[in-house]
């Protein structure tokens, strides 16, 4: 589905991603784990078009998508969430979601002026869809609340909700569980699994909650120092001495 070939990304003197190669199988929930500073989020930003790599290619279904802009990739069905929720704080929860669907005719000025009936009909559909998503995420009651007033965990759910407002093929989730409490976490995990099984979304998840990964993800890819260190099931990863060393920072001692 997604193939990353030999990506290198440097910021000034620092090499954040250093020749990273990996593959995300279609229909999988692939986890990317690794200690802080391993280059996971940078890699995500490169895949989603928010950063341009210094070297290497990203392929989606065999097509080279390196350097495409986020909107172009969005139209190809690749969406991402942010580690720190990027909600629109002074807009309502509902508006946050209603923004997302593409090709809304009301986004064109002329249609907004000349065919208000059509825009209104579309808005009703989009709203219904947004409400469905909110119900699914148990945020329905908060739909008229300003997004900035949500708790950290609720904002995380809203991030996920944003990806559900389209029919994506690949969703990149950056630390969906961080700051989410236990009850919400269960919901989140169930939501991801359901979307994967029922709607066939492919997920790539950066996460530090190992229990969640063990429960949800296969394969698990471990990154360290900008490279892929290991790949396999969570059980295999746990048994891999190199991985433990990377986490404890003793690999080179």
């Amino acid at each position, binding site marked *: 589905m997604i193939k990353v070939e030999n990506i290198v990304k440097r910021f000034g003197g620092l090499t954040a991603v250093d020749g990273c190669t990996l593959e995300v199988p279609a229909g999988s929930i692939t986890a990317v784990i690794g200690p802080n500073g391993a280059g996971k989020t940078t890699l995500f930003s490169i895949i989603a078009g928010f950063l341009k790599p210094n070297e290497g290619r990203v392929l989606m279904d065999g097509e080279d998508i390196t350097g495409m802009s986020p909107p172009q990739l969005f139209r190809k069905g690749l969406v991402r969430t942010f580690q720190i929720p990027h909600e629109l704080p002074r807009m309502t929860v509902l508006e946050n979601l209603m923004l997302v669907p593409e090709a809304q005719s009301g986004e064109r000025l002329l249609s907004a002026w000349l065919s208000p009936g059509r825009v209104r009909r579309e808005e009703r559909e989009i709203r219904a869809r947004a409400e469905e998503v909110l119900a699914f995420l148990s945020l329905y009651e908060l739909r008229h609340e300003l997004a900035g007033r949500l708790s950290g965990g609720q904002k995380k759910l809203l991030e996920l909700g944003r990806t559900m407002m389209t029919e994506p093929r690949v969703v990149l989730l950056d630390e969906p569980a961080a700051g989410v409490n236990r009850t919400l976490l269960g919901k989140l995990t169930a939501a991801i699994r359901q979307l994967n099984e029922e709607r066939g979304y492919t997920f790539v998840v950066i996460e530090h909650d190992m229990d969640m990964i063990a429960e949800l993800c296969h394969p698990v890819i471990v990154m360290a120092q900008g490279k892929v260190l290991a790949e396999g099931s969570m059980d295999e990863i746990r048994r891999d001495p190199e991985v433990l060393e990377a986490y404890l*920072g003793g690999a080179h001692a």
Partner: protein
Amino acid sequence: MTGGYGGVDILQGVDLVVEPGEIVVIIGPNGAGKSTAMKAIFGLVHLREGHVTFDGAEITNLQPNKIVERGVGFVPQSDNVFPSLTVAENLDMGAFTRRDDFEPARQKVYELFPILRERSRQLAGQLSGGQRQMVAMGRALMLEPKLLLLDEPTAGLAPAVIDDMFASIREVNRELGVSILMVEQNAKQALRMAHRGYVLAAGRNRYDDTGENLLANREVAEMFLGG
């Protein structure tokens, strides 16, 4: 300590103690609140509950420059040098609040990090990651603090440089008698050198013990990979 950013309590009742002359390391999985705890001590994160005392005086939620004056130095994790200033000027900035002669302090920093003496006229922005980290630490030492807070001093450094960095930290502690509280990813190496360590998880204390005991503790190791 209880507090965090924008109403979200990342810290939920964390207790930390650093005795004079100690090296204390905070480790824990990502997102445990280690860096936040460090920033809270230094007044950069507002504490809703709890207290921070230093030498018996309350410094909870004080302005950072007031805390610096009391003898606490802080080295942030990233962006911790002034890139368009020379190395020497970076060190001067550390002594900004000092009116007395701080030349001896500068000489001590140069003894500690001889490379900085060589590079003293070079812009900090042109240094390697490890050298920048030395500049940052050197700057914090210019005030001759009693306590130094280090936020992941080895993050993003090459393995060989990491070893040097740990050696320097130990030297700062031993030679200059500065107590050190640090957050560290490289848990093994850090614990080996530390007098004591704290393990945080999900904004709470999980374990605290001597460095050696924590190293020997299987559970601590496994915590990082769950299960």
